[in-house]
């Protein structure tokens, strides 16, 4: 059966951002269907579909919804995580700018399922256009009775959606950092437990979901969980912890390819197929040196590992942190891994919130070391030190509150283990050059 895109299907239709056009193409039918069911039935549908969060961690969405305490008097909050900051990721932007009502329909259905009365869309500041488009769409919904009180005549189902613009911090994409930021505080991730589903925004039960996850919810309601499970990769029978990777996924392809862009494909496509068939191969006829499988924090895959399926399980097998946001960045064979890694470390050191000691100090230290190596003043034992720091701040589980340090550590670990020869060569050669230069200046 040929794969048929659903998330990006309406993107080319002119005026799809407007409610009437969206409704003319079957919009808000899924919401009507959802309102015929009880919230529990909607949660069950999503559980049955095997939908896993698209924001990076891949936690089963239905299970997360199930953590909301039963019979909670409310209010319950839904937060839409549109603080898309993972380097290389841009699928949320395309969804929000191209088909905002699809996102909002998924949001309203999910709010109904978890009995939320308020939904906050936390959108990164840089997404001004997406913010304006969403804001206009929300106003349309209020005008047509799809938001506010007793939505679509369903007595007792009230929902308000507010958009909150972030102020440009990567850490606000972490779910508890996002909640702190929404509360008006510094986005310092919270310690867990209590989990947000029990005590989140304003100490009330809160679910934080990614934009793409919510868009998928709409289609699960429309086409049923069986359709969703027919796409993707079933659980690996040899791995009892694998629960399968189902559904369509938006792969963000960028870097040194001929046709970068956002491609909707079934989960489990291999990196090679994505780059060659959809991305049109590496630019200028060069070869792949490495790819980042799912946003910078997942680490690197070498060119030997391109046949790995990009599902929730695949990148783990080749020593990466996971699928992440499925944002594939291609690095060609003329790019220095030292530069790539330096850039990665600089990013995470800049974005570390400064709360936990290992991340605050470790990310900055790794950046300093790599900057020194790049200057030609590296030592071979710096590589082991880098690996030790990476292990200490993020690879060893439990050393920090949130996952930012993991994201900073995995690129270092994978780059140095997989491209060690290149690092050693660089240190040896650049070092001898700079030493010679220094000696020359001395004799002058």
């Amino acid at each position, binding site marked *: 059966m040929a794969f048929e895109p659903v998330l990006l299907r309406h993107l080319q239709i002119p005026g799809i951002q407007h409610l009437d056009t969206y409704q003319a193409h079957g919009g808000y039918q899924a919401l009507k269907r959802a309102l015929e069911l009880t919230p529990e039935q909607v949660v069950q549908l999503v559980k049955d579909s095997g939908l896993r969060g698209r924001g990076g961690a891949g936690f089963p969405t239905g299970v997360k919804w199930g953590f909301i305490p039963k019979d909670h008097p409310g209010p319950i909050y839904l937060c839409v995580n549109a603080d898309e900051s993972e380097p290389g990721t841009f699928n949320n932007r395309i969804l929000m700018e191209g088909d905002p009502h699809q996102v909002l329909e998924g949001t309203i259905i999910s709010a109904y399922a978890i009995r939320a009365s308020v939904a906050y869309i936390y959108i990164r500041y840089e997404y001004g256009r997406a913010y304006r488009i969403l804001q206009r769409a929300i106003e349309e919904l209020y005008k047509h009775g799809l938001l506010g009180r007793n939505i679509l005549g369903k007595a007792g189902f009230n929902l308000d959606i507010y958009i909150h613009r972030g102020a440009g911090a990567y850490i606000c994409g972490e779910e508890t950092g996002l909640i702190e930021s929404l509360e008006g505080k510094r986005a310092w991730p919270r310690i867990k437990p209590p989990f947000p589903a029990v005590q989140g925004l304003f100490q009330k039960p809160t679910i934080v979901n990614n934009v793409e996850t919510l868009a998928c919810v709409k289609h699960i309601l429309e086409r049923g969980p069986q359709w969703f499970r027919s796409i993707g990769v079933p659980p690996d029978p040899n791995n009892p912890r694998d629960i399968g990777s189902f559904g369509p996924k938006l792969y963000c392809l960028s870097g040194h390819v001929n046709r970068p862009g956002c491609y909707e494909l079934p989960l489990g496509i291999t990196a090679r197929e994505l780059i060659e068939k959809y991305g049109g191969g590496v630019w200028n006829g060069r070869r792949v040196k490495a790819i980042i499988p799912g946003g910078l924090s997942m680490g690197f895959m070498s060119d030997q590992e391109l046949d790995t399926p990009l599902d929730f399980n695949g990148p783990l097998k080749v020593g990466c942190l996971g699928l992440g946001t499925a944002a594939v960045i291609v690095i060609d064979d003329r790019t220095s891994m030292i530069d790539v890694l330096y850039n990665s470390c600089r990013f995470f050191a800049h974005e570390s919130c*400064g709360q936990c*000691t290992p991340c605050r100090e*470790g990310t900055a230290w790794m950046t300093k070391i790599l900057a020194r190596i790049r200057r030609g003043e590296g030592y071979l034992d710096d590589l082991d030190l880098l690996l030790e720091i990476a292990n200490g701040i993020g690879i060893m589980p439990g050393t920090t509150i949130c996952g930012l340090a993991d994201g900073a550590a995995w690129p270092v670990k994978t780059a140095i283990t997989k491209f060690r020869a290149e690092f050693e060569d660089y240190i040896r050669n650049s070092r001898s050059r700079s030493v010679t230069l220094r000696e020359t200046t001395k004799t002058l």
Partner: protein
Amino acid sequence: MAIITVNGRDIEIGDHESLNLIQAAQRAGVEIPHYCWHPALSVVASCRMCLVEVGEKRSDGSIVMQPRVVPACQTPAKHGTVVVTNSPKARAAQAATLEYLLLNHPLDCPVCDQAGECLLQDYSYKYGRARSRLREGKLAKADKYHIGDQIVLFTDRCVMCTRCVRFTREISGTAELEVIHRGDHAEIDIFPGKPCNNKLAGNVVDICPVGALCSKDFLYKQRVWFLKSQKSVCPQCATGCSIWIDHNKNIVYRLRPRYNPQANGYFMCDEGRFGYHHVNSKERLLQPLGRQSSEWMPLNWLQLVQEIRSRLDEIRQAQEDHLTALVLSPWLTLEEAWLACQWMRQMCPRAKLVRGPIRDLGEDDIYPKTSRGEAVPRDKAKFIIRGEKAPNRCGLDIILRHYETTIVTWTQWLESIAQQNILHVYFINSDPLWEASALELEALRSLRTLVVHDIFPRDWPSVAHWLIPATTFAEKSGTYINADGLAQTVRPAIIPPEGMWSEARFFWQLLDRTGLYHAPTVRREIASTIAALQPLDADELGESGIPIRSCA
């Protein structure tokens, strides 16, 4: 009964205790290093110094360990919890955290006030590594002298535990301190133009585990390893905070709060903390003086005892003892007040005993403040600064009630002084800040006898006939009873200057008692005489004191 295993040793904790693993390990005698956790503040688990391995002991005796290290401060101790603090994994995590903390730390211990009582030093020695592997330069951050009138921030020494930030948010409620910037550039700071000057601000210096926040009052005055500490009680208000008096060579250098759940908790106010300077003051009255016609003559103490005694004898023989009054300061200890009353009644059986002047600033100052600066209700209070600026009003009242049917206050007595035709007054003031007003001086001017005990000479030479130096709280030995009726022991940290006698010793001599004044003996004597003080009939009042029910 919950059983917890710490490094292979089982300990028991009570069913209704909610302890974290740091506290549980403490019971087992195992120290888990920590910076950000403080028992009085919320848990943030951000310093990551207390990482340990945790597991669970099943009912069949098997132990299942978690694969991750966890912060001990955030993990509750439950039945069957297994804590391992000395495994290679836990050790590695602790050593790594310390290495990160020291990366940008200036290591300026030789000029740092905290050196000697610094957790960064202690833990580095115990858990850290000897050499830094940092080949690059350290980050430099500017010192912040403007952060408060009493505190200074040495920004580069900070380990970002945020205890101080949480203190101003949760205990004082004034929220002056905050974190600015991100990552390793993060710093503690104030909002522009709003320094941290709340009345509890000095506590951030104590809770700072490193030398980042220092007290301007103590800065560069003394290395802490020269200091000797004495357990005592703060006299500045009726809260009666338990304190440490840190002193060296008979000079008091600073006061620090001492944990007492029944009085002050972990903290004390700045009024008390910085209110010790009168002890070291050069202005103090050091020698007894007697007035002969218009000349003031220095007396030695034995002469003084003779003169006072013979004066009182004269009064009694002249049948004027009902025209005599003894005014007792509420800054006197229980024992001093007792001895003074006993002596006065022995010499002049009909003498009036009067409660001396109390500085009262009215309303108690209750913390935390709300965001609007209002006080929280008293039952939610985390700290109370009393308006009544005296440490022992309760104790003094119990003594006075033993001798008198009603308690006559200073103002009541002063109003009636003319009608009653009072001629002889023995006035004891130990409050360093109380000054007689012109009106009060005028009322005392026409007396035939005025004996004054005071720390400072003030205006007394113009009205008094004898002027006797009084001791300060840091030199006293005795008992204070605070506003809640908690009796605590005051211990002398330093000896009075220049051979000065304490009030207790002076009255001891006047009473012609043999041997030396010993406060616990006198306290037991009082306890066996006054029923209300019966609980004080013990050798020791303990670390946190004994509550007296009839007071509260």
